[in-house]
């Protein structure tokens, strides 16, 4: 019991929980980014305008960054 509560164990336990929390958040964020892409494309279909393509590109860039976020959190 005493061994379990050593500083190293506590640290690894704390960072493990933090990492798990980061991964959950980034996965949720990825889902959100996917919803944004879907929504932007449906909005663009609904109201066709000059800058819709730029907005779609932005939403895909956002997805790319959210995937990068997941990879970073897994690599922690």
């Amino acid at each position, binding site marked *: 019991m005493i061994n379990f509560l050593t500083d190293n164990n506590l640290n690894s336990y704390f960072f493990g929980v933090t990492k798990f929390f980061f991964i959950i958040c980034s996965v949720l964020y990825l889902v959100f*980014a996917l919803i*944004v892409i879907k*929504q932007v494309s449906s909005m663009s279909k*609904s109201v*066709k*305008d000059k800058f819709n393509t730029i907005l779609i590109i932005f939403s895909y860039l*956002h997805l790319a960054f959210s995937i990068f976020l997941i990879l970073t959190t897994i690599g*922690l």
Partner: protein
Amino acid sequence: MNRSKDLDTIAPDDDVISQSVAKATQEPPLKKKDTKTEIKIEKPSVENLTQKIYHILGHTKSPFSSFLVRPKVLKFTEQDDEEEIFLAARPHFITNISWICLAIIMLFVPLFFKYFSFLDIFPAQYQFTLRLFWYLFTFMYAFENFLSWYFDVFLVTDERVVDIEFNNLLNKHFAEADLSKIQDVSSSVRGVLGTFLNYGNVLIQTASETNQITFENVPNPEKIIKLIEELRDLEKQKGETKND
């Protein structure tokens, strides 16, 4: 026995008779002239209408403007093939100022991370992830708000009035009312900014299923009212001529 015909054949040089006969024979071509003039009247009326629209609304070119007069690129799904958009309005750009300010503040927050001592317990890689997450969240906040503004469109076409709105990126709201079914149009300009920058709400009462359509925070509400009234009168005139 038709006397005029006889006289014409007997004495064709007689002025009175020859004129009456000539008039009788000229009647059908006169009708043709009438139809031509009718067509000639219709064409300038369309040009007059567009001129009238420009006179009421003025010209706007920027695609990010909140007040687009006869936008050529903008279209919507429910639009008919021959339906023309006379006005596309979004809420005034100044209504975005609150989220723009907040996004700018959020952008600078990571610079103050070093003052939070509790973050020092995390290794550099954790701090980097936290910053990345924060910046993405800030971007998303700004992007979502921009999309809500950009796709919140009020349209006045030659047939109807349309309100397209997206709430929280997940709900689409579409409301329309035929110009002929519009009963009453009113506007309200509120607050200091609204008065200074001339934007407000336009309220349209209709006889259709959607009883009320509200254009919120649109620029130049008085011009929009004038345009709708003008188009409504034109629609009524069209209806009356059809009935006749």
